[in-house]
């Protein structure tokens, strides 16, 4: 069967996009529309499910099936949908407040069940929709509308959390790094199991420049290390810096000072997430922050496959259900 060739524009709904001018969400929307036609999945087989927040308006702008649900719960709707309709490609669109605060529980459980959905987490480290309160990923000491003396919450690291929940695909990208972002979305779509892509996304109204160190092209090379499977961790404007493992911690070295073999070679396929977890914990400014695929482990059974396999197996071993037989099984009696 030949599928009609679709273009990015075919994935645009007829609704006006209403994010603030300059919002990082536009870039993520554009990359999604660009990536989807390449996946060969018809529009009617794709469903976007979101929670609440600026990012969560996303489904309205896609010409696919979609559900704008309730705060923090998007992974649960996706779980119910994917369990019953494994034929669909399901995307969860969420933000740092949505996924990690009110929805922290569901975020963990989607990952540990390895339900085959793709979670795109827009992380701008602030509450945008409710106008500027700090979020679970806001920095300590951050002054916001609700923290005039500075936030005293320790920030949550979405990648560490995902790895701790045994996530089988964990990646990070940046709204402004469009090519990389498109590649990460594509890799996520191709992964079988829960995929998480954290996207650094600028809120130019309430938290402008919070991640400029990673977003701005000039600064990015010095502050970000792009992970590639099987390649050493090298970064810097002149590719002159590297990351190596010394004992049980990572450190930055000058490439010139060490042998090439000394640098850490990235292994996204390693089932033991210990080193991936160490990468997830690298934070600016002490360390370069990793982007790319931290972990991509295939072959872990998905929840949707297993729930359907159990039904199939039950039908094979017990035969398809016969209600009339069920009704009359066991102790019955006749009344004349």
């Amino acid at each position, binding site marked *: 069967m030949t599928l009609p060739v679709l273009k990015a524009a075919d994935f645009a709904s007829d609704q006006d996009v209403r994010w603030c001018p300059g919002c990082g969400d536009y870039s993520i929307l554009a990359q999604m529309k660009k990536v989807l036609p390449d996946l060969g999945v018809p529009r009617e*087989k794709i469903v976007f499910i979101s929670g609440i927040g600026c990012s969560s308006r996303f489904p309205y702008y896609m010409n696919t*099936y979609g*559900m704008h649900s309730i705060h923090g719960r998007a992974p649960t709707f996706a779980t*119910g949908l994917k369990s019953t309709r494994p034929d*669909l490609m399901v995307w969860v669109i969420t933000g740092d407040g949505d996924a990690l605060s009110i929805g922290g529980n569901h975020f963990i459980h989607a990952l540990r069940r390895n339900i085959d959905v793709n979670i795109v987490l827009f992380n701008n480290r602030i509450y945008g929709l409710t106008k500027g309160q700090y979020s679970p990923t806001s920095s300590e000491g951050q002054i916001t509308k609700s923290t005039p003396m500075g936030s005293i919450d320790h920030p949550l690291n979405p990648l560490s959390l995902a790895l701790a929940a045994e996530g089988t695909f964990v990646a990070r990208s940046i709204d402004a790094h469009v090519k990389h972002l498109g590649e990460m979305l594509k890799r996520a779509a191709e992964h079988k199991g829960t995929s998480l892509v954290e996207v650094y996304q600028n809120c130019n109204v309430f938290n402008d420049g919070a991640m400029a160190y990673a977003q701005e092209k000039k600064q990015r090379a010095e502050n970000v290390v792009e992970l590639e499977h099987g390649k050493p961790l090298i970064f810097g404007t002149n590719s002159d810096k590297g990351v190596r493992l010394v004992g049980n911690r990572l450190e930055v070295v000058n490439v010139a000072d060490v042998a090439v073999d000394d640098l850490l070679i990235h292994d996204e396929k390693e089932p033991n997430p210990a080193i991936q977890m160490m990468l997830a914990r690298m934070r600016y400014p002490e360390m370069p922050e990793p982007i790319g695929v931290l972990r991509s482990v295939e072959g872990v059974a998905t929840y949707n496959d297993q729930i359907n396999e159990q039904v199939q197996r039950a039908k094979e071993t017990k035969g398809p259900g016969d*209600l009339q037989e069920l009704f009359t099984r066991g102790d019955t009696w006749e009344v004349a």
Partner: protein
Amino acid sequence: MTSNPNSSNPTTAKNVKTVSGITVRLAGDSGDGMQLLGTQLTNTSALAGNDVATFPDFPAEIRAPRGTRAGVSGFQVQFASEEIFTPGDQLDALVVMNPAAMVTNLGDLRKGGILIANVDGFNEKEFKLAKLESDPLEANVIEETYRIFKVPMTTLTRTAVAEHGLSQKVADRCKNFFAMGLVYWLFGRSLDTTLRFIEDKFGRKPDIAAANVAALRAGWAYGETTEAFGESFQVEAAATLESGTYRNMMGNQALAWGLVTAAHLSGKDLFYGTYPITPASDILHELSKYKNFGVKTLQAEDEIAAVCATIGAAFGGTMAVTASSGPGIALKAEGMGLGMILELPMIVINVQRGGPSTGLPTKTEQSDLLQCMFGRNGEAPLPILAPRSPADCFDIAIEAWRIATECMCPVMLLSDGYIANGSEPWRIPDLGSMPKITINHPAGTDLDEPFLPYARDEFLARPWAIPGTPGLMHRVGGLEKQDGTGNVSYDPANHQHMTNTRAAKIDRIAERIPEQDVFGETSGDVLVVSWGGTYGACHTAVKRCRDAGHQVSHAHLRYIHPMPNNIGDLLQSFKTVIVPELNMGQLRMLLRSKYLVDCVGVNKVQGKPFAVTELVDAIEARVTPQASSKGKAAVQSRAG
């Protein structure tokens, strides 16, 4: 003990007295096997052709401290040769395994009733645990009021099972089967069902199976051979049940089977998303057995996940159901509101328990009615149905799914702990003759014409277009939407229109449900209006009052929102309307506010169902005096 009660109809040389019905309660420590004993007695009685009704009553703790009053677990069953609607008020017989069980249950035993006590459980240590100063069996008043049988059950059981070489602890555990055997003898029950049960349950442990059989037979033989019992009782088969094949059904089981049947009748697979909570968990346990029927069960991480996964499944086109009890329903409230504005069909079951908050988890109550009616933000009306008995759960599950799909909305089912754990005979339906539930998902199109996800049919229902269908791509969400297109809309007039439309959609269900039926006259002196699990007690009470000459009618609501169209006229046709509820007046509030009729409440929140006598008294207090003089005496003679 040579008697061998093997036959289906054990005979006894002693005097057999035929009675129309027996109410018996078995009480002991939680862990003594009282629920098992009660279930066996129920099944055996049902198979003997009696009408049966049961009421299990157990503590919330898994193993409450043994020997204490808090740890008493009881199981009550009424079996009768006439049609019955409740497990009975006063007990004809009470079996107690220890002093705590005796003192906490004796108040329900009628004067002259039979008290069988395992005297091995009556000693200083047990008196202390039950906070008693002396042996309650020795009190003179007890001797004078009841017919007491002191049976050393533990000792007799040890002797009976001695040859099977069990440890004393394991041997003692067989004593509930000894008690069972004795009860079976006393009421002329066959041992066959229980012998089969033992074989099924303990087949892999032949020594335990053999010991339990020995204990059961020893109990029976004890009744047969000792001089203690002068007579036994026989309850003839019930003649009043509709002809057909029957089985005994518990409420939660019937709900589960009704859901699977509704899925079958509508050509759907069933998805059940839930989180464990008493007393709803057994629906999950039951449904998880039926994967070969296409049933998928999700034990979610919490109540919110459960309802939201259910909505996700409904969006995908599956028959989706979630269930909980009051506290869990509170957590599901936001999701239910979303299901309502998305206009997706699903079923939300609330198996009510005593509240508020954690309340009385293992006890029954009807106090979530207003929660289900109004417990969502915004104007979010939903249909509410309530089963009236364990067997009715089967039919109402199917009816709920019919309404949900015809109307495109979540439907709430209000069961309760009394219905969920109680049991009664269920007439097995002929699946082939049950009406199908027709569901039409709109077909796909190759064209890119805009699809209207909120276009409406004559019932105001929108199309159930499901992902995977070409050309019908659409987005739904919790934001207010423009009618027709479903696009987000903050237009003031549109919000009013959508609010009106959603309410009208629910109200119109009244046109497609049966008119309220009435037991008795449709106008007159007193109308009793009830809903849910109090059906049996209310019906029996009204029946007694009518038999006693009072002009009393009974209307039992299965459809609570919307109510049948004739309810207003009905209420206005009676001098007095009495509304008995196991809450402080929630249906009464709805009736008063909607129909402006001054209803009288009979309200109780004690974690216990109504006793028939309580309702008879309440009705009598309200009947017009001239009708009551003859009636009162008659009612008293039956109740006494």
